[in-house]
């Protein structure tokens, strides 16, 4: 067993240790807790770099270390961790971005009184996320998955004294739980039908050919092949975590948390966990394409959901006025791109986009955090502005991130990863719709990012906070610069000319493609990006907003559409109207039934009784009364007798039990013992 595989479990263990130490730290020990957390992340980064080196020696191998947790009856519950290029790359990404964000938080959270608690939670989150990444057993993955959810709940609600934050935390937790229920069902079903939850287990893992073969031969379940059904259930969990279309509503609200949290959890790592999960179980989820008898492939659903999400998120982002919400919706749409790539069968492109997106989106969020920190927590882009002159470093890095996200050609990583996604989509045999959705998304992305840049950094300062904003200290700007370098340089890992990433991930040498093949598509997307940038500049850059309450040009152009998008397509209202309304309706129905149907019947019976009573009263008066009275007396007496047994005397009860036991035992004995 290579040493870096032996030590792989330390990668999540170190942040976990830091979290427990932070939990022990009294409030005063700010420097200690932060120091421990950052040291632990640095150690994790070091170990994961070693692991990556070891994994790249033989990219096609899956080095696993499994062990038995405990026996359950005659089955065994097994856990384990896995070292392959995918997990190693994710480890490096998570710990690197996490480290930078921890350092950033030193500056950002410096005046918060719960500094130590913040770092404790952050370390807990990092530990759980790394656990998800290295897990070789779906059970371990699920445990860490839930821990991730818990940590995100704690961090979104970090300022729980704000009602909005508390509500957002609850919303995020519950919404993701809906997805996780599906995931849990899928895991149970998988364990039931394969008897194992290990991913790779020397031929017995659920991702290996033999087990998949058995899975494929199973009977259809409700018109679906068993692998398809399980994959769809697993995808529910992924969709919930990475904010895919039906379950995306929690992500924008999650922006109530501190900005480093938004950067780490809701841009770089946790929301990517869903994508990672699908990429991890890709052999399982794509297996059903071999089955002819199958009406619907799981990947088709994934692609459809991804396309819808990409388009919807980008569209909504064009009309938000809160700095962080724009970024949140752009995150949703980018995650949609990744799911789209997975759905069309190129998980390498998805992971590539995941990595680059982690960098430039974390960069954007941190830059936004720097702006917010400087502008005394002013997040409304209409009241910002003019910061380009006062905060040059933030401005430059934000511009880099913006260009990377909107896919400005050739220099920026976002361009290459997005090209990979679109290229994969264009090669999908089933349908071209995802490609078109992606292309439209490209335009929208360029548009809203330009809008954001112009509104925040150009023109005059439109509020005293913005006017007083000054550049932040190095502890905040240095991570920005590093991330900016990353989000430029990372792109060259996956250019068609030098497909290092693909060969590393798949373990197969991949022949470099010339830029010309598929160049048409590239040219088209370049044109679209230019169009988006131009439109944004035309609307927002040419003549910059002068005052906070000036009308937004877009809404001036199309007020109805702008309002619709600004209200997030009224999806929250829709949910309230359908699901919430359903409850109310049911209650109202029950109420009606009670009040009128049953009540009416009872009333009718009562009337009947009264009538018969009045008829019979004569008879009663004459003879029956005495009998009835005595009877009711007896009944009351019996009631008293019984209530006497309920004496509240514990020993009396014990005595009764003893007597009953004796009686039963006698019955058994005299009955011959059987």
């Amino acid at each position: 067993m290579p040493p870096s595989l032996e030590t792989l479990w330390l990668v999540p263990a170190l942040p976990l240790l830091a979290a427990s130490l932070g939990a022990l730290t009294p409030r005063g020990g700010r420097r200690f807790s932060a120091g421990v957390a950052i040291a632990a992340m640095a150690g994790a980064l070091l170990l994961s770099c070693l692991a990556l080196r070891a994994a790249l020696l033989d990219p096609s191998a899956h080095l696993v270390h499994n062990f038995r947790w405990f026996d359950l009856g005659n089955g065994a519950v097994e856990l384990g961790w896995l070292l392959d290029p995918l997990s190693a790359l994710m480890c490096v990404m998570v710990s690197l971005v996490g480290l930078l964000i921890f350092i950033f938080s030193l500056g950002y959270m410096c005046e918060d009184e719960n500094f130590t608690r913040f770092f404790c939670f952050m370390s807990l989150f990092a530990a759980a996320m790394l656990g998800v990444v290295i897990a070789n057993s779906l059970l371990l993955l699920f445990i860490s998955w839930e821990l991730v959810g818990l940590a995100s709940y704690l961090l979104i609600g970090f300022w729980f004294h704000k009602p909005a934050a508390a509500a957002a935390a609850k919303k995020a937790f519950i919404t993701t739980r809906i997805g996780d229920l599906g995931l849990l069902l899928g895991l149970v079903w998988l364990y039931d039908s394969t008897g194992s939850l290990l991913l790779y287990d020397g031929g017995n893992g659920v991702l290996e050919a033999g087990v998949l073969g058995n899975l494929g031969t199973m009977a259809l379940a409700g018109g679906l092949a068993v692998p398809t059904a399980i994959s769809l259930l697993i995808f529910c969990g992924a969709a919930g975590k990475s904010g895919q279309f039906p379950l995306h509503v929690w992500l924008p609200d999650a922006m109530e948390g501190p900005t480093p949290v938004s950067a780490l959890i809701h841009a770089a790592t946790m929301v990517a966990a869903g994508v990672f999960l699908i990429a991890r179980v890709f052999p399982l989820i794509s297996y059903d394409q071999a089955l002819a008898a199958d009406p619907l492939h799981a990947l088709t659903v994934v692609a459809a959901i991804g396309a819808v999400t990409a388009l919807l998120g980008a569209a909504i982002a064009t009309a938000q006025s809160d700095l962080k919400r724009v970024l949140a919706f752009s995150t949703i749409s980018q995650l949609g791109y990744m799911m789209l790539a997975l759905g069309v069968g190129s998980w390498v492109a998805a992971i590539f986009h995941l990595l680059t997106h982690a960098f430039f989106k974390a960069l954007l969020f941190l830059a936004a955090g720097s702006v917010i920190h400087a502008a005394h927590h002013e997040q409304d882009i209409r009241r910002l502005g003019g910061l380009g002159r006062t905060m040059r470093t933030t401005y430059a890095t934000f511009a880099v991130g913006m260009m990377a996200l909107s896919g400005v050609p050739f220099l920026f990583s976002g361009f290459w990863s997005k090209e990979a996604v679109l290229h994969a989509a264009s090669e999908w045999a089933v349908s071209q719709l995802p490609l078109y959705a992606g292309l439209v998304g490209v335009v929208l992305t360029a548009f809203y990012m330009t809008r954001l840049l112009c509104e925040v950094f150009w023109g005059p300062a439109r509020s005293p906070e913005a006017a007083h904003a000054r550049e932040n200290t190095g502890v905040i700007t240095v991570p920005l610069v590093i991330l900016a370098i990353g989000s430029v340089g990372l792109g060259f890992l996956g250019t068609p000319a030098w497909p290092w990433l693909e060969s590393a991930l798949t373990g197969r040498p991949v022949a470099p493609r010339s830029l010309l093949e598929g160049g048409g598509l590239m040219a088209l997307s370049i044109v679209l990006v230019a169009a988006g940038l131009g439109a944004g500049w035309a609307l927002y850059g040419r003549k910059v907003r002068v005052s906070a309450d000036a009308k937004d040009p877009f809404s001036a152009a199309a007020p109805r559409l702008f309002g619709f998008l600004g209200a997030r397509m009224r999806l929250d209202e829709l949910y309230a109207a359908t699901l919430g309304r359903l409850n109310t309706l049911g209650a109202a129905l029950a109420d009606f039934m009670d009040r009128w149907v049953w009540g009416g019947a009872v009333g009718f019976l009562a009337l009947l009784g009264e009538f018969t009573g009045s008829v019979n009263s004569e008879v009663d008066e004459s003879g029956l009364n005495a009998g009835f009275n005595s009877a009711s007396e007896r009944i009351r007496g019996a009631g008293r007798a019984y209530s006497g047994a309920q004496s509240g005397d514990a020993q009396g009860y014990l005595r009764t039990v003893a007597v009953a036991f004796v009686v039963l035992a006698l019955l058994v004995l005299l009955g011959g013992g059987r």
Partner: protein
Amino acid sequence: MSPLQLCLAFSSLLFAVGLTGALARSNSILVLLGLELMLTAGSVNFIAFWRFGPPASPATGVVFAIFAIAVAAAETAVGLALVIAVYRHQRNIRLPEANRLKG
């Protein structure tokens, strides 16, 4: 009488003594101790069957006895806490007087 029967007789008498005490005394600590005796009788049975009966596996009876001891410890802890809580409400620990919930 075979040793196994002797052991079982021993445990059943122990159980009966515990039951009698738990029923007769009014002091709730003594009642608790009577229950403890009954539990002990149970684990005596485990050991007796492990020693003389055909064992399922060489350690099963011992394992169950250990579990029984652990559970008994937990039971005592909670029981004594309850006794102290009762004492806080009614300034004594006489069980027959603790019957506020009678019907």
